[in-house]
């Protein structure tokens, strides 16, 4: 475990990705979360669920590529079952998180807009899981064709882009909810 090599490789990547998250924070602080009381409580669950579900999907695709069972010519066909699992788990767990958070907030005497929360989290989960699955598949097949190890690039890309994308999509659905109402 060479200390210098560890610092040289990890410090720039972590600092860069951390600073990129500033933009996620910026979008988050301008997303109009206050329009839907209680929504802020679901945000960490929504973002991290996306990371856990799509991140492990991406890392699984990377392993498939290494094992030679990911066909870069027909990437979407190879990954079909994985995409179904990602979309299902994202939507199901986001709705569960919405219900759980609403119960806690309601029980502790906070304002909760239950229908608004469920609308925003389920639509955000659906759209962001579809977009992130596509992005994962494309990044794996592109890096595979260019002979870059997908393990080194795909998961950081998915986690950083994913955070920003989920928050931006959520801001859109908060806006839409305001318009519909």
């Amino acid at each position, binding site marked *: 475990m060479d200390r210098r090599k560890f610092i040289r490789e990890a410090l720039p990547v*972590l600092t860069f990705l951390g600073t990129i*998250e500033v933009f996620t924070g910026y979008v988050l602080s301008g997303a109009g979360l206050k329009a839907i009381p209680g929504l802020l409580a679901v945000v960490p669950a929504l973002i991290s669920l996306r990371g*856990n579900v799509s991140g492990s999907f991406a890392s699984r695709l990377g392993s498939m590529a290494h094992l030679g*069972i990911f066909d870069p010519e027909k990437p979407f066909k190879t990954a079909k079952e994985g995409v179904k699992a990602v979309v299902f788990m994202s939507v199901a767990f986001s709705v569960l998180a919405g219900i759980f958070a609403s119960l806690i907030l309601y029980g502790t005497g906070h304002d909760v807009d239950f229908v608004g929360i469920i609308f925003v989290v389920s639509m955000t989960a659906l759209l962001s899981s579809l977009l992130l699955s596509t992005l994962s598949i494309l990044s794996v097949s592109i890096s595979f064709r260019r002979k870059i190890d997908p393990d080194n690039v795909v998961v950081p890309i998915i986690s950083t882009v994913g955070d920003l994308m989920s928050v931006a999509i959520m801001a859109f659905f908060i806006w839409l909810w305001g318009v519909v109402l």
Partner: protein
Amino acid sequence: MYGDWKGIVRENCGLLAAMMFIEVLGGGVLNSMEALFSVFPAILSFVPVINAIGGNIGSVMGARLSSSLHLGTVRPALSDPKIREDMETSVLIGILAIFISAISLYAILPMMGVRVSMEPVKWIGIVAISAVTMISTVLPAAVMATIWSFKKGRSPDDFTIPVVSTLGDFMGIISILIAVKMVGL
């Protein structure tokens, strides 16, 4: 290799459900800090930054350790000197990364129109306390989760990363809360 989508769901849903509950608890704390964020929006912008760095340094530590465990170059025990050395290096990297990002944040936010409206000394104090709280929780957890899953024969990639990134998110919020209470505003 991973079968149909139902198989993938069955395999992952227990851990995901547990992580989701922890995240919602963290979110509840975040929600109760809402008043603070409307006065100091810069602090809300700092939440994803510290969460990401904390989660990432934990994941990197876990990934490095699991490779070494598989190669047999370290023993699966906290007392192994190589694990100790790697943890010290990770502490250094984590704290430096949080500091550099926080200083950039102080410069970038006003350009994006977010008020920082806080003395630099207080900002540094909040960053320092939350960085130390975060790193000192996430790193030991990453090491223990990796050693535990390795001993149980589970893939550390599937276990350590969700556990550590969730803990990173939860601890990010808690450590900022602790820092704000200690420094005062």
